[in-house]
Every structure is written in C-alpha cells, then in structure tokens.
C-alpha cells in the first residue's frame, strides 16, 4: 500500500473523507465525539498540537546562512556596479543599501533568533510536496516537446492517487475529465498557443 494513503490524515485532504478504505477514518470517529465539547482554549491547544513539529536551531541557522549568503553576494555585486554618492548615485547604491540591511538582519537572526520555534521540521509528509514538485518540473520540461496533455494527465494521476489517496477508479475518471476540460478551455475556446499534442 502506498504510505501516504495509509495515514489517517491524508495530505491535501482538507475537508475530505478519505476515499480509500484504508484511509483510517474509523479510529478518528470516537475521538471526534470526545472533542465535541472543547472550549476555545482547548480547541486552540488541539490545533497547536496538530501543527507540524517545529524545526530545531539547525534549520534556523541554515536559513539565516542562506540569507547571509544572498545578502553578501548582492553586496559584492552592488559594489562592483559602482555606488556613487547620494547626490549622484550609481546603479549599485540602492541594492547596496538593501543588501546591507539583509546582512544585518541575517546576522541578527543567526544569533538572537536561533531558538525561534517558527520553522517547521521536514517530516515523512514532506515527501508529498517533493513528489509534487518533481511532477511539476517534469511537466515544465516535457511541455515544449510533447505538449501539455500527457504530462498533465500523469500529474493528475500522481497527485490524486498517490498524494491524495483517491481510488484508482475516481483518479482515472477525474484526471481524464480534467485534462479534457483544460484542452477545451485553453486550446479550443481560448485558442492560446499552449504547446499541445493533439
């Protein structure tokens, strides 16, 4: 069985009734009744718990270093473009000012904001966006060569079946309808120049 569809909270399943029988809705039902009488505070606490786990200091340091890197890079490039004076600025002056601010903020974040809990950990669930991203990138790469229809169909099937836990039957049916609808809208009705096979 595909790992995502066996988890009770299906990714991208907002407002969804997991369609797969293995969706695991059953263990949640009794819990749901217990939760009926929560006060706002308890409800908020419950939401807080359901949030993805916070990432540690390492993730914060990494993002600060990326900011520092970008800031320093932009700083060097702006100096190379020439700064000029405030009265007669050259192209590099404004980017130079911004990159200075960025470097300062990056340093501040690296030292003071190290222990903030606002970054999210990458979990097993993060494989879903990664898969999604790969399909999107593949679609961008393939579209000029073979048109949008087949990549779009494959994208729909992967997203619905493997990321969304739909049944094969509804996946195939809906994917076909979706691609046909897009063909109708973008190619037949709007007559855009989107690369298409048929």
């Amino acid at each position, binding site marked *: 069985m595909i790992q995502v569809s066996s988890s009770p909270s299906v990714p991208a399943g907002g407002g969804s009734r997991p369609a797969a029988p293995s969706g695991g809705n059953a263990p949640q039902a009794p819990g749901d009744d217990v939760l009926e009488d929560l*006060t706002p505070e308890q409800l908020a606490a419950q939401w807080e718990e359901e949030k993805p786990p916070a990432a540690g200091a390492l993730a914060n340091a990494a993002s600060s270093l990326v900011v520092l890197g970008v800031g320093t890079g932009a700083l060097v490039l702006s100096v190379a473009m020439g700064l000029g004076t405030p009265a007669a600025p050259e192209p590099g002056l404004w980017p130079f000012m911004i990159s200075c601010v960025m470097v300062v903020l990056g340093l501040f974040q690296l030292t003071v904001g190290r222990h903030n809990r606002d970054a999210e950990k990458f979990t097993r669930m993060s494989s879903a966006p990664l898969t999604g991203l790969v399909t999107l990138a593949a679609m961008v790469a393939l579209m000029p060569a073979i048109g949008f229809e087949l990549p779009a169909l494959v994208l729909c099937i992967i997203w619905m079946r493997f990321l969304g836990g739909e049944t094969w039957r509804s996946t195939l049916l809906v994917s076909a309808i979706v691609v046909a609808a897009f063909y109708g809208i973008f190619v037949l009705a709007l007559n855009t120049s989107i690369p298409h096979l048929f």
Partner: protein
Amino acid sequence: MDFLNPVINGFAVVLEPSNLLYCLIGVVIGMLIGVLPGLGPAATIAILLPLTYNVEPVTAIIMLAGIFYGAQYGGTITSVLLRLPGEASSVVTVFDGYQMAKQGKAGTALGLASIGSFIGGTASIVGLTFLAPVVASFALDFGPAEYSALALLGILLVATISNGAKTKALIAAAVGLLLATVGRDIFTGESRFTFGNLELADGIDFVPIAMGIFGLGEILYNLEERHRAAKAPSKVTNVWPSRTDLTQASGAIARGSVLGFFLGILPGGGATIASMASYAMEKKRAKQPERFGKGAPEGVAGPETANNAAATSSFIPLLTLGIPANATMALMFGALLIQGVTPGPQLVEQDPGLFWGVVNSMYIGNILLLIMSLPLVGIFVKILRVRAAILAPVTALITLLGAYTINNSMFDVTLVVVFGIVGYLMKKFGFEPGPLVLAFVLGSLLESSLRRSLLVFGGDPTGFFTRPISATLLIVFVLVAVLPGIRTLLAKRTTAPSEQPITTKIKEKV
C-alpha cells in the same frame, strides 16, 4: 452635489453587463474558496491574475475585489458547520459558531454572520466613499520624499504586524526589494543582477512571482499539511435569525463595523486581526463573558462583521495613496500596474470611472453575497464534498497553464515553479511570503522616489526631515521599529491570558 456626480457615474460603470458578470464571477469564486479549506483569497487572486490581462482594468479589479470579500463570507460556513475555519479571518467564529450549530442553531449563526457581513461591508463602503477622496486630496501634494517615507513605513508595518517572526518578515521584505532591482536601472539604463540573461533584462514580472510564491507555494505546502477529516454537515435549515437574536447581536454588529473599518485602513491590519479584535472586545464587554465559547450570537456576529468591514476598508490606502495595506492589496496593486493604471492620489481625479466603479461594485457584490449565503447556502454546503485531493492538481494545472498564457513563454512557467519552491521553503522556515510580494511591488517606486528626493536634497539624507509630512512619517517609522517591545508588554496587560494561545497559533492563509 458635485461630489456625488462621479459616485453616481460609478454606478453606471458597475451596471455594465460585463462588469456585473465579473462581479458575480468574483464573489462566487470568493465564496467557493472561502468554503474550501486550503487556498486563501490571496493565493486564488494570484493564480487568477492571467485572467485579468484581456479585460478592462475596472472589470479586472471588480472581479479580484469580489474574490477577496467573497472569501470572508464563505469562510464562515465551514467554521460554523465543521469547526474548520475556511479562512484565517474566520477562526474565531469557530468558537461560538460551532457551538450554536451543535445546539441546532447553525442556520441562525450563518444568518447572523451573513447579515453582519453585509452590514459591516456596506458601512465600510459608505466610509470609503467619504474618506477616500479626502485622503486622496490630502496626498496630492506628496512629493518623492513623502512617497519614500510612506513606502518605507508601509513595508515596515506589514512586516512587523504579520504573524510570523518579525526579523524573518523583514528579511522577506528585503528579498522582495532586492528582486525588484533585477533588470534595467531606470536612471542609468545599466543592467543589474541579470547575469547576462536576456529574459531578465526587463526585470522580473510581478505575476510569476505572485503566482509562484502565493499560488504554487501554497499548493505545495497544503500537500503536506495535516487536515482533520470533515464530517458531512447536517442539513441547514432556517437561516433567518429571529428578532431576539438580531437584537442581541445588533450591538456587536455595530461595534464590529466601526472596529473593522479602522483596523482595515491600518497598514498590516486587515480581516484576520479585525475579527480577533472584535471577538476579544465582545467578550470583554459582555455582561456574562462565560457565555462566550458556548454559543453566544455576538461571538459570531461581531467578528464576521469586522472581517468584512476590514476587507473593504483596506482598499482605502491602496486606492488613495497607492500603498497596499496587506498582501492581498499588494496583488491588487500589481494587477492595476499590469493594466497600466498606477494607483495613487490622482486616481480619484483622473480615473473616476475606475475608482467609483470598483467602490460601487462592492455594494452589488455584497448584495449578491447576501443572496448566496442566505437562501442559497445549501448549495455551498454541498461544495464541501469536493475533495482537496482532486482540487490540488486542478489548481496546480491552472497555475502552470495560466502562467504560460501571460506572454506565451515557457520562461514564465519556469519562473512560477522556481518561485513556488521559494514560497514553499519560506513557509516551511517561517518566513511570511506577504512582505516579500508587497516589497517587490513597492520596490521600484521606493527606489525612484528615494533617488529623486536625494537629488532634490543635493544628496543630503537629513533633507527628509525638513519636510513636515515626510519627517512625521519617518518618525513613525522609527517608532514602529522600536515599538514591538512596548507593544508586547501592552498586549500582555490588556488581553486576557486565555486569548494568548488563540492569537499565536493562527497562521495567515494567503
């Protein structure tokens, strides 16, 4: 009565069939995305930006505005019926709305929310009608120095009032400003940060950035977000609230309208903050605060009124000063720029058709929404059956294909995917995407007015303090920069401790 002439002419603009149609499309889409958890109004507006290329500016903004305030109505439905806030601005509605639904008064809660939203929205439009021309005429004398100060202040306010970490929001804003410098320097014509790439020579378009960071980033993020499984809602009957319910809630609606109107104007304010402030205020004012959280009608009516009033009044800074007050308004700003319209104080005078057309379309939109959320609410409840697993690939495809149609180029599509990754990673690492997009939109305005004013002042930065308005704005800028410490202290003293966990956990859905 000269003042009223353009207002009345604005109605003629709204009543053109195509504008009415787009208004309807906008509010229906807004209602839908409000009902469906996942995509928020800003993401939807970003994804649909390519749609606006081939229509008149006024028509485009009428539709986009409809999506924005329509979402405020729709978000209520899931809050009340499923205890799942469709939008961040409806989170507090859950507390009393769901309890009312459990007591069999779901219809009453929805009815009160719709009527409150309608009154709040309408009161806010009336306020907008009278206040906007005043602000605009005041701002007509603004020179480059004032605009630099105003843009700086706007970016700072949006970054500091956002929910995430302030430093990270400011970093996001700095990245946005930096991205805006890519391309040809407007003063010298020299290329900046293009790395020899011809596609970048004219700078990065606003639309791929917005579609990527707001649209695709949000879609990717939602792929891993844990969602609670929703139960099929019970049937909603009797949405017309009784006279006693209305009397009980009327005070909350009146207070919510005023509170929402003013919080909406404030840069960085907006619907979410307005709804939370209204809930806190109603709870504080109530004679028996313990009723809150157990199905108090005021706890639904107040916040729902306030979020709609704020959504409407946040158009004031955009349409009169050309400074967007929040991320969604930054998208409107971008949409107007695409159309060749620069929002600013001269807009009321130079393009009254557009200005009053957009403002007056909100009356129509609110009436349409009232109809959709009272008698037709059952249809929207049915929409909840559409599964997100099916919606996600559809929205992703709309984004990619839509991005292609902007310039018929694959480069734009690639940019959208790249910025989609950036947007996703920003959300994962706790960086608000809103300030980035806002700063990007204001970037070139800020740079050009800064450089122009430095030319005027002969290169002396203290010149900003010789002009009263720019000096005031810059002093406010400094105050805002150092105020957060003082504000947290104040917040600790004024808000009841029980409110704390609620406010900290709400993540702005863009």
